[in-house]
């Protein structure tokens, strides 16, 4: 079942504060609202707290105060296990680099979220895990690599496997933390286009983080983290 949000808001932060260590506040964000289906670009210099923000949105980190509302549910009010399950079901995540579990092959890496989350599996609408994985993989141009050892892939191929993994089971939200910074310019644009078209097809909200501002024109909306972060 898809979580419906009548408001059209996918995510919302309200007076959120976060610190890794007491007294060293990294984030203080009065408000950030992300609409459903939006393609949002967040940028900021290294160390400005981009990854930290994504951790809050994904429910890996817990805000010290304030409300983090995702798909209509307040993550700060959930139990840790609930947050993990929620993330597994509704959010796809791509890291900057080394996204893959080294001891699993391409196919097993892609289907991992569906095996971990029953709800994510249900969203395949009856398609087998493998068929679903193949479908996304074909779209991303890695259909021929399904049984490949992930250590033997090029960086660009690895990132596409990571994208396939974040997209399988059509999660409402896809979060990408600098997924293109290790790719050259041509591959970067190609990768982003593929990501866009997949997100469009699935109706997913895309939150894309980078310090590379040349990518800005491709997105619906751009936010500078230092601008919205009062702790900066």
């Amino acid at each position, binding site marked *: 079942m898809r979580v419906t949000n009548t408001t059209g808001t996918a995510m919302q932060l309200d007076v959120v504060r976060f610190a*890794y260590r007491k007294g060293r506040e990294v984030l203080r964000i009065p408000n950030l609202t992300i609409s459903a289906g939006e393609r949002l670009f967040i940028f900021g210099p290294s160390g400005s707290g981009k990854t930290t923000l994504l*951790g809050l949105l*994904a429910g*890996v980190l817990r805000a010290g105060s304030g409300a983090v509302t995702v798909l209509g549910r307040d993550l700060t009010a959930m139990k840790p296990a609930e947050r*993990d399950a929620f993330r*597994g079901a509704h959010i796809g995540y791509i*890291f900057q680099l080394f996204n893959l579990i080294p001891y699993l092959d391409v196919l097993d890496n892609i289907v991992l*979220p569906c095996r971990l989350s029953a709800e994510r599996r249900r969203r395949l609408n009856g398609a087998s895990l493998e068929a679903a994985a193949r479908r996304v993989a074909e779209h991303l141009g890695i259909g021929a690599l399904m049984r490949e050892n992930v250590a033997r892939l090029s960086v660009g191929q690895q990132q596409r496997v990571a994208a396939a993994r974040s997209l399988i089971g059509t999660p409402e939200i896809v979060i990408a933390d600098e997924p293109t910074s290790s790719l050259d310019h041509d591959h970067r644009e190609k990768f982003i286009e593929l990501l866009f078209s997949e997100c469009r097809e699935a109706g997913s909200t895309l939150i894309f983080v980078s310090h590379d501002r040349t990518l800005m024109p491709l997105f619906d909306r751009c936010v500078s983290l230092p601008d919205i972060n009062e702790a900066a």
Partner: protein
Amino acid sequence: MLLLSLAYQSLRHRKLTSALTVFSIALSVALLVGVELVRMGARESFSHTISQTDLIVGARGGSLQLLLYAVFRMGSATNNITYESYRQFAEHPAVEWTIPYSLGDSHRGFRVVGTTGDFYTRYRFRRDRRIEFTAGHAPENVFQVAIGSDVAAALGYRLGDAVTLTHGVSSGRGILDHEDRPFKICGILQRTATPVDRSLYVPLEGMEAMHLDWGDGAPPLPGEATPASKIHKEDMKIKQITAFLLRAKSRIDTLRLQREINTNEPEALMAVIPGVALGELWRTIGYAEDALAVVTVFVLVVGLLGMLVSLYTSLNERRREMAILRAIGAGPRNIVFLLVAESGLLALAGTVLGVALVYGLTWLSQPAVEHHFGLFLPVVAPTPTGWAYMSAVVVAGLLIGFVPAVKAYRNALADGLGIRL
């Protein structure tokens, strides 16, 4: 299930370290279970040093002493038994057979046992093994001797060699050698891997003949001794023996006979049940096994610590893996489970391999070990202690897995999605 299969694949990915860890645990387990097997085998072999004998009878004294001189050929009897008393019980209606022993002489450190033909036909050890010969046959006349395999090996004797027996028990050349009456080797016993191998066996009459013309424990004066050629088996009158082994017709008879012997008048006799006496003796020397067990437990602890070290050191390299799993929806608890499952699998694999190793080795080495050490290693299902050891290893493996797992849990909470390399 998913996490278990992840744990398995992760271990397979790190083949070499996993294999080494499994192997080191396997060695520890093999040692632990092996020591247990040897312990069992030793106890079993020990308690079957002598079989099918229901009572060992000697002059009244310590039961341990009786066991030692009658079975283990160690120490000596303080008193003998008259031949009449022996015959009285040998002919007892409840008695199936007896084997008399006359002890007290030696040959270059090995005990000489005077006995009858019953020894060669009735004596049993290791449940149902009997005395057999590698060469020759049982003594047939007075001055023939059959020698145990250790005696033959140590002294390099062959059939037909003549040996001189020594009065009393001493090693080397005795002061009172029965030089005038040498014995001829007529048989060499097959190895039994029991104290039987360490003796020479002469007929009771031979024992008597050696001491013919002796008075008050002193040899006859030169010239007064009857020449060996004039001594005949039929003429020898046996006056006393040292001990005898007895087989009763039934179990109930055994106890009744024991009581009867112990209360015998006027000669004070004593009968002990070999199983009971052997058990007592085993308990007194049993602390050696405990020492062995302690050492093996230490070996096991070292093996498990090795696993801890290898899991713990792999943890830093795997922080990224943990972050990926978290991003996909795995919670810190899942990560704990994953690591504990890994160590559990390692411990389980190590245990299985170790047990297979020990049983394989036991099976292969069984004949050789039995031949050389007289130790019968039974290839049987593990004892309750054995099972306890095995489950303890797996449980310890799981528990040890918690150390890196808790560390990973903390990392997982602290790192968030930022991955430090």
